[in-house]
């Protein structure tokens, strides 16, 4: 990691958490991998539904900090909702991009990710972490 200084503002990572398919669960798991392990000192997540509900604290958070969205499907709800909230969208990642680079993985579990799903989440988490590093370097 290039920078972990606590003087930096936090980067907000928001997954779509889509509930119907494995890709939504992967977006969520990848986000947790970043905010709890890979870049835990410089990132945090935020409830997407709370943000869209107009919660003032959440709105201020996405407007005053850089935001990376992680979407499970082409509808890109996380990205759209952050834009609608006037958030400082600095990066937008999709699970399908990780899938294209790991086609041998066939994630199926939705409620609980299977092994392939977990591996894809880790691959995606690396991409998110790299994006975090890029953003920190810009600051």
């Amino acid at each position, binding site marked *: 990691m290039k920078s972990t200084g606590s003087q930096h503002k936090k980067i907000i990572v*928001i*997954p*779509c*958490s*889509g*509930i*119907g398919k494995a890709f*939504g669960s992967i977006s*969520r*798991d990848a*986000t*947790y991998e970043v905010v*709890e392990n890979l870049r835990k000192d410089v990132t945090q*997540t*935020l*409830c*997407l*539904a*709370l943000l*869209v*509900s107009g*919660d003032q604290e959440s709105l201020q958070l996405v407007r005053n900090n850089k935001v990376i969205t992680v979407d499970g499907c082409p*509808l890109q*709800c*996380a990205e*759209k*909702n952050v834009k*609608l909230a006037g958030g400082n969208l600095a990066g937008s990642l999709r699970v399908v991009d990780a899938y294209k680079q790991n086609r041998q993985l066939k994630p199926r579990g*939705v*409620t*609980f990710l299977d092994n392939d799903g977990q591996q894809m989440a880790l691959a995606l988490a690396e991409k998110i972490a790299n994006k975090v590093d890029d953003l920190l370097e810009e600051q």
Partner: protein
Amino acid sequence: MTETPEKKVGIISCSGEECVEGTISRVATRLVLGKLRPNETVTICLPLFLAGGREEREFARDYPTITVDGCDKMCAKVATERYSGEPASSIVVTDLTKNWQCPKLSARRKLDNETLTVTRKVADRIAEQVDDVLRHWV
């Protein structure tokens, strides 16, 4: 969202990324859909519903819904009321865990055994609510 040919109950779970109760909401909802009441329920993706998903909002207007929220901010319930109408029933996980006098739960990513037990109890409660809605279906 899947097709809805007959009597179906929509379950709308909060996404709740910040807290363990959000994960409990989500997993409990999935357990109901996949195991406990697979033929009687569908789910609606809350972020899509909030982003203006037309089909999702129409479903929630035309069919009974049960909202499952992790905390007392009740994003799923508030959104359903705002865009589609009063849900038939609503569940707040923190209310249940308080009533059940659960110890503090913390594993929001991978549910530990203790949290999984609570999650199964929440799923059972949702399933009871589904049965109740279907019993009173006019």
